[in-house]
Each structure stands twice: as C-alpha cells, then as structure tokens.
C-alpha cells in the first residue's frame, strides 16, 4: 500500500478532438492540501470533474485508496467518500440551508425507498441524528442562524460556505474544492482560508483548484501546476513559486518568440 490517498497517472480527456488533459499524473497524500493551479483553460476543472465522476476520462488511472476508480459514475464515487464543491455554485436554491447540508448526508440517510415510505422508528432516529450532524456543520461554517432560510436567498459569500459545509458534513475521505474563493471579497476570502486550514487541522484531505495565489500559497502543502492540459511542475509552494516553467506559463515567454 502506498502512502498516497490519491494517485493519478496518465489521465487523458479530449473534448471533440481537443485535448483538455493529456497524460496528467499527480499524487495527493492523506491529511494534506494539494493545490492544482494553472492559467485559464489549463484543465483544472476538467481534472476535478474526472475525479468526481461528473465526466469520464478517456484513458488513465485514478487510484483512490489503492483502487482504480477512473470512469465510475458520480454517485459511486460519492459513496467511496469523495465530495466536492463547484466553481459556479451548485446549491439547491429552493431547499433550506439545513436541507442543502442534509443533502450532503444522502448516503448516510439511506437509499431504500420502502424504508423511506414507511418511516420506521430506526429511520426516525437516524434522521434526528443526521439533523444534529448537519446543524453542527452549519455551526462550524458560521451559518447556524441561517439554517431555515432558502439557500437561494443568501448572499454569494454565504452560499459558498453552505456548499463547503455540504461537502464536509459527511466526513468525506477526500474533498475536491473547485475555486472556493472565486468572486469573494478579501474579508470573505480570509474566512474561507481559515476554514480550509481548520479542516486540514481536523485531518481532512483536500484537492484545491484556485486562482488566488495568496490563498494557494497560504494553505497548500503541495502545488501541482497544469498548463494546456499537461502537468508542467509540482512541488512545495516555495519550489513552484520560483519554477521558471511556471512563471512562463503565467506570464508568457520572456524571450522573443521564434
């Protein structure tokens, strides 16, 4: 058994013949924050979508806890303990904040239709326990006083935190955060950074896609850099910061083009 929770090797994904990911490999260690960075169109979100089963990779291996999970549908990956947030919020706007977070406990709540229809005592108790668990998560993410509000009515920054609470409430094995601070002001960004650090201290494993370099450098243990669907660098935040290939990808070629 390796020391890595997630080992990706040779991942390929094409959209209509255009490569979005080519031969991408990287690893994420348990209990650490691994950041994926790169310019727009580098393939970061595509990679997250492959990891969460939203799209199927064309080729390559995704070893999760030693098992190849590439190509499994999203609900199966969720069952294995992979949770995620979305770049452009995907909350359920008409459900209350509490129900949104309870949706993060779908698997724990049970999937038997007959059991749900009959609402036997066992289910009643489980529902009560899950509700407490969801309320705790809301508390941890600073949303306790908004539990009963419809999620759609909240301001953007609160919505981002509801999505994080929903992703963490089930005690997932791996959480994929897709641009958790996109569109937030500095104050809200600092708040999210604090929450990510808190989750890291609680022993959570995270893969973070983010454009905000200050956040990435502040919370990550390891940084993987993608450009044009390929991995161009990986290492500690300090190493990546000074890597010439990374600077080139972000700032363009310094020398005259041939």
């Amino acid at each position, binding site marked *: 058994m390796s020391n890595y929770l997630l080992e990706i090797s040779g991942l390929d994904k094409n959209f209509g013949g255009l490569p979005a990911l080519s031969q991408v490999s990287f690893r994420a260690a348990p209990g650490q924050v691994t950041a994926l960075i790169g310019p727009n169109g580098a393939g970061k979100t595509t990679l997250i979508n492959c990891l*969460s*089963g*939203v799209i199927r990779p064309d080729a390559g291996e995704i070893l999760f806890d030693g098992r190849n999970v590439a190509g499994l*549908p*999203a*609900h199966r*990956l*969720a*069952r294995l303990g992979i*949770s*995620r947030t*979305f770049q452009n919020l*995907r*909350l*359920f*706007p*008409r*459900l209350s904040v509490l*129900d949104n977070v*309870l*949706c*993060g*406990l*779908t*698997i*724990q*709540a*049970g*999937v*038997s*239709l007959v*059991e*749900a*229809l*009959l*609402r036997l005592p066992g*289910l009643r108790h489980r*529902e009560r326990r*899950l509700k407490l668990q969801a309320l705790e998560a809301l508390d941890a993410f600073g949303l306790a006083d*908004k539990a009963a*509000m*419809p999620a*759609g*009515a*909240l*301001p953007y920054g609160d919505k981002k935190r509801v999505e994080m609470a*929903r992703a963490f409430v089930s005690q997932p094995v791996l959480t994929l955060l897709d641009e958790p601070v996109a569109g937030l002001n500095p104050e809200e960004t600092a708040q999210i950074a604090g929450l990510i650090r808190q989750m890291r201290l609680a022993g959570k494993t995270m893969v973070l896609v983010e454009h905000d370099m200050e956040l990435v450098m502040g919370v990550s243990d390891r940084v993987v850099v993608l450009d044009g669907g390929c991995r161009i660098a990986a290492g500690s935040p300090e190493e990546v910061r000074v890597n010439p290939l990374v600077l080139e990808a972000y700032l363009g070629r310094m020398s005259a083009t041939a």
Partner: protein
Amino acid sequence: MGTRDRSKLFALRHRTGLAVWVLALILLGTPLVVNNPYNLGILNLIGLYVIVVLGLNLFIGYAGQISLGHAAFFGLGAYGSAVLTGTYGFPAWPAMALTAAALALIALALGVPILRLSGHYLAMATLGFNYVVHSIFVQWDRVTGGPSGLSGIPPLTFFGFAFDSDLKFHYLVWTFALAALTLCLNLVRSGVGRGLAALAQDEVAAATLGVNVRRAKVQVFVLSAVLASVAGSLYAHYFGYVNPHAFSIFKSLDLVIMVVVGGMGSIWGTLFGVAFITILPHVLEFFETYMDIIQGVILVVILLFLPQGFVTGLVDLVRTGLARRRLAAETAKRAPTG
C-alpha cells in the same frame, strides 16, 4: 420538563403526523355536513384523484420530471380490476394487488428507457404511451368492451361489508388517500426525498452527493404508477363501469393541472390542487361549459407568474422575502453608519 413543555415538544416533533390525524377526523365527520349523495360523490372523486396526483406530484414536483401519460396508469388500474373481477370473477382485493404489481412492472419496463429523456422528449414519450393505451381501450373490443367500456363491476367488500354507497365509499377512498398522503409525507421527509428534491434542482450536484439519479427517477415513476393503479381500481369498483373516455390524454392534462395548481413538490398543496380543479366545474354551471378555457387560462397564469405552481410558488415567495428582510436587517445592524 413540565407537562406543557413536553406536550409542546411532542406537537412539534409529530406535527406532520398530527396534521394527518386532524384531517382524518375532519373527513370522518364530513358526511354529517355533506350529506347529499351528489356532493359526497364529488368528495369521493377528490379522494380518488388525490391518490393519483400525490404520486404524479412526487414525479413532477419532487423528481422534476414530466408525465403527460398518467391517466393511462389510472385507466390500466381501472381496466385491470374491471376485467379481472367483472369478466373473470376474480376476488376484488387480489385483483387490485395483481393489477398494481403488473403496472409496477410495466412502469419499470417503460421507465428505464424513457427516463433517459427529459423535457419535451419525455413529455412526448409519456403522451405517446397514453395514446397507445387509450387506443387499446377503444379498439380491443373483446376484452375492453370497446368505446362503450365494461359495466357490472362489483363493489368492493370487506368481510361481507360492501362499499356500495357514496357514504360507505367515502370512508374507503379516504382511508386509501390518507394512507397515500402519509407515505408521501414520509418519503419527502427522508434522505430519499431530499435526494429527489436535489435532483429536480440540479442533477449533477445531486449525483456528486451520492444520488443515483437514473434509479431514483425510475423508482418514483414506478411508485406513481402503482398509486395511479390503486386509484384506478377503486374508481372501477366505485362506479361499477369503466369506459375509455375517462382515461384519455385530456385526463392526463387535468392531472398535470392539478399538480401545477397544488404546487410542484407540495404534498399538502396537492389536496388543494385536486379539490380546486375537481370542484370548479360543479360550483358554477358557467364554469362547466367553459371548463377547458378556464383551466387553460389558470395554467398559463400560474406558470407565468409562479412557475413552481400556485401553493409552492406562494410559499417560496414568502420564505425568500422573509429571509431577505432578515438578512438585510442584520447587515444594517452590523454597519449602523449606513
């Protein structure tokens, strides 16, 4: 904890169950007030449609799908019971169960392929299903009795007690309707129900939270078909005859209108939607003549202004308004300088 606190907590914890019991008590006493057979008949019809529309509302309102073919399931339930008991002399209760089980299988076989579709395509597929079933009712003379249908269906009996009057049937149909109501309320208050509400609003997000989207849709489709089938069987035994006219695509549209008036995903709203649409033509003769036009106008107006349906739309508006006001008040408090 005092007795008063304890009873308060009990009431809060069991508010849904208590509401159902209150409704049951009201319905128990209704025949004392509504004592002419005509009005009781309307109330019975409401009970029948409540069973169908509860299932349809789970499918449309909770799972976010569309069906323009549920009258077919209702009709197949009615014809199933009619043929088995009237023609072949089957005992009524096993015939009802057998019909429902058969319809569950049909819905499963139909649901697996067509629930890959969505929106207009799903609407057309279900409409087509209803059309085919209706044609069979009309054309397959030997079994269905053709356009004039089947008659002489015996009433349901329970240990020798026959539900052969409007009054007796009132208690029977509402027992079924309240049971269906309870099952649906249970479902929506479970993880499965939240999963359905989630997939109606965002299938991708629901899937990443562990909802098996395709399976959940098929399950609800089958459940709604079974409820429609049971209601159909009750219908056949109540009226004693069935004919194809009652199960055409226009009946399917009526059912969808009931869902829309009641509100997408509102279990309690369903009661209102069914009652409103069923009573309307009986209240004023004017409405009876122009029923189709009025229903059309109601549908357009509701969908234009409250796309979530009448009851749900209003509730959503109020909830969102209250939340926005509270949030605004909090922001103002935090920055008093303004």
